[in-house]
């Protein structure tokens, strides 16, 4: 536990090695990255016994171990300290397996998926960089380190979305993702500075302690925590900054699975969970989180209904599920949020990798070109269906358990309509996942060229899928007390990650679970009714409400709105600033100053007569003046 800094250090070192020398290595150094990933998984699991030990001693949860390493920056006798520290607690211990396992799966999968791509070594290097940054993020014990890692994962995300930068749309998407998340990051930075101003420290646990003791003014704290949540909005693609995530699907599919489904986008969830004791103090900020999450979940769910790109559907689904997590955080159910994060990571990564397998085989990613693939790709289809069932929330699959806890959390203390809305969103989730499965794997092939081309993917792609499918099936059992006890944690994940006075769970709320199951089954039923066979009913529905369809297809016109804002407001402002710069700063300030000097220079240059006697006279006058001054000052 004292040496967890090794975890991010390994992939960081591998990043440097592969980025610099990968080109020269056999297989461009991918094996190095995979060995690194494997080592990380091993190390993380080797941490569990020690963690259990500490957990049982009772001094662990909810307080983790804060390992202070050294002061990185120390200005003014402790006035401004940036330490280098790591912090491990239950939240971290949930994040670590998620990050390392999904990363390893993606690394293995990419061997085949990215085979023969140009800049293959660079892909693996940045993958390693991402893992390093992500691990730093979840292990960070102070806010500055967290912020650095936060930007680090953003950078890796940018590089990987724009991996095919030769494609205009990929370059645009990378920029969009980076800039949109930057908007949130500014909020995060402001929040960090505000918290530092109030407490004089960057140490997360000290800040939490100060906030809990009431040392910080309540309004001030609310504002600071809202700014902090701004960072989470950007990173976790919540409304209104959700627009970048669907476009981020321009990146290679394994990247989407790792970064834009399982790990980076949940950094916001992690951040809010990390600060959940503080958010418990400022209920306005927490309610804000709650409603943001709810709105995002509904919006993204409806947009997912009409999207045609298989990856975009999954992206909307991711946004929607992240909304679920924030809903849980907004009710204070940190355990439920982290649990959903945990399960979602596996089944969403599975779905993305499955879609990658389809794309790899058919070179098509529009659902309109696919169909009937279950005959050609049975393994992919089976694992994809498992993932979809988990996403839809069908019992025994992972999503069922975690979503159930979130829905249950809304039942306590939140208005009833939010509960209903959440159930409706869960219903939508089931509908669009059914639609995706039906359109991709069932029915008649729509594009025969793509269909004929299709074939089952090689083992190196199937194996990660199968492993993730297993996890997507069993990951939910961690909620059960019995499983938790077997693993050494009394009460399962629900009590492992918990907050005082918050909703803890050891087993599902059976009546509610039944309701949720019925809703999910209904969703599947509706999905089947609309999209089975030639999807006649769906077409009818589209004709019946064209405006609604257009609204959804155009993503609630959010992107158009943003583009309009950029075109008019920002470019107008930029024009104003440019005018100011050109006229006032340049022509008046710089050129004007230069012209004034030039004018005086032109006038004064005639002093330079070129005649030596004139110069000598000037010298003499100066000398006499100095002599007079010296003489008179002597008295």
């Amino acid at each position: 536990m004292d040496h967890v800094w090794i975890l991010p250090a390994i992939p960081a070192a591998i990043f440097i090695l592969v980025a610099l020398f990968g080109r020269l290595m056999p297989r461009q150094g991918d094996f190095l990255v995979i060995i690194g990933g494997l080592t990380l998984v091993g190390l993380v699991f080797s941490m569990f016994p020690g963690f259990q030990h500490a957990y049982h001693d009772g001094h662990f949860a909810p307080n983790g171990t804060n390992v202070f390493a050294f002061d990185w920056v120390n200005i003014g006798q402790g006035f401004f300290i940036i330490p280098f520290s790591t912090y491990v607690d239950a939240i971290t211990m949930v994040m670590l397996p998620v990050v390392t396992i999904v990363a390893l799966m993606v690394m293995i999968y990419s061997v085949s998926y990215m085979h023969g791509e140009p800049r293959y070594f660079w892909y693996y290097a940045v993958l390693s960089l991402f893992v390093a940054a992500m691990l730093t993020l979840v292990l960070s014990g102070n806010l500055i380190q967290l912020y650095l890692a936060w930007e680090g994962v953003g950078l890796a995300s940018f590089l990987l979305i724009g991996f095919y930068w030769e494609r205009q749309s990929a370059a645009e998407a990378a920029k969009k993702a980076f800039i949109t998340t930057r908007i949130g990051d500014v909020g995060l930075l402001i929040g960090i500075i505000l918290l530092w101003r109030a407490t004089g420290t960057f140490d997360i646990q000290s800040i939490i302690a100060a906030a809990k003791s009431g040392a910080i003014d309540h309004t001030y704290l609310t504002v600071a925590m809202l700014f902090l949540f701004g960072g989470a909005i950007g990173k976790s693609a919540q409304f209104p900054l959700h627009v970048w995530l669907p476009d981020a699907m321009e990146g290679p599919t394994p990247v989407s699975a790792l970064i834009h489904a399982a790990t980076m986008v949940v950094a916001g969830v992690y951040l809010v969970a990390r600060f959940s004791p503080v958010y418990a103090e400022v209920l306005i900020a927490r309610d804000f989180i709650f409603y943001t999450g709810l709105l995002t979940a509904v919006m993204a769910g409806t947009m997912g209904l009409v999207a045609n790109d298989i990856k975009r559907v999954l992206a909307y689904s991711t946004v929607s599920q992240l909304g679920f997590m924030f809903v849980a955080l907004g009710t204070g159910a940190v355990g439920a949020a982290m649990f959903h994060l945990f399960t979602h990571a596996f089944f969403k990564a599975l779905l993305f990798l499955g879609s990658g397998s389809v794309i790899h085989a058919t070179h098509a990613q529009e659902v309109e070109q696919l169909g009937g693939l279950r005959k050609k790709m049975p393994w992919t289809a089976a694992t994809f269906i498992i993932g979809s069932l988990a996403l839809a929330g069908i019992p025994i699959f992972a999503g069922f358990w975690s979503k159930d806890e979130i829905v249950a959390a809304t039942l306590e203390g939140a208005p009833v309509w939010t509960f209903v809305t959440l159930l409706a969103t869960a219903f939508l989730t089931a509908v669009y996942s059914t639609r995706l499965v039906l359109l991709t794997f069932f029915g008649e092939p729509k594009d025969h060229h793509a269909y004929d081309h299709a074939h089952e993917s090689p083992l190196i792609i199937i194996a990660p899928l199968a492993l993730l499918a297993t996890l997507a099936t069993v990951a939910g059992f961690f909620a059960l007390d019995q499983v938790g006890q077997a693993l050494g944690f009394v009460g399962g994940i629900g009590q492992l990650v918990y907050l005082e006075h918050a909703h803890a769970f050891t087993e599902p709320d059976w009546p509610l679970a039944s309701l949720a199951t019925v809703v999910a089954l209904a969703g599947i039923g509706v999905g089947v009714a609309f999209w089975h066979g030639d999807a006649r009913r769906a077409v009818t529905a589209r004709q019946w409400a064209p405006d609604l369809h257009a609204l959804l297809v155009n993503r609630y016109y959010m992107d158009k709105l943003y583009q309009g804002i950029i075109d008019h407001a920002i470019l107008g402002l930029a024009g104003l600033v440019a005018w100011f710069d050109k006229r006032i700063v340049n022509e008046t300030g710089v050129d004007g100053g230069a012209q004034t000097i030039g004018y005086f220079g032109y006038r004064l240059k005639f002093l330079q007569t070129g005649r030596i006697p004139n110069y000598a006279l000037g010298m003499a006058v100066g000398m006499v003046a100095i002599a007079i001054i010296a003489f008179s000052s002597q008295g």
Partner: protein
Amino acid sequence: MIPLTNFLVLSALLFGIGFYGVLARRSAILILISVEIMLAAVAINFIAFAAFRDPKGFSGLVFALFVIAVAAAEVGLALGIVLRLFRERRTANVDAANTLKW
């Protein structure tokens, strides 16, 4: 005997005359002559101080000697330059050497 002040006054007057010559004259040769007058004034000053104030160390004498030596060097070099000027401009008038102006 003659007091130190007399020598100093003589030197000051000589120096002023030389100064006037340097500034007023146009011919390079005459400027050179005026500079010689100024140097002589300086040398008188050095020697007077050496004789009156510092008879043991008499560094002033050495300085005066050096002044004479450097003046000789200066005259040689300056005449070379004057000759050059004359060849370029067909005159020894320093006002002719005014290329280095605006």
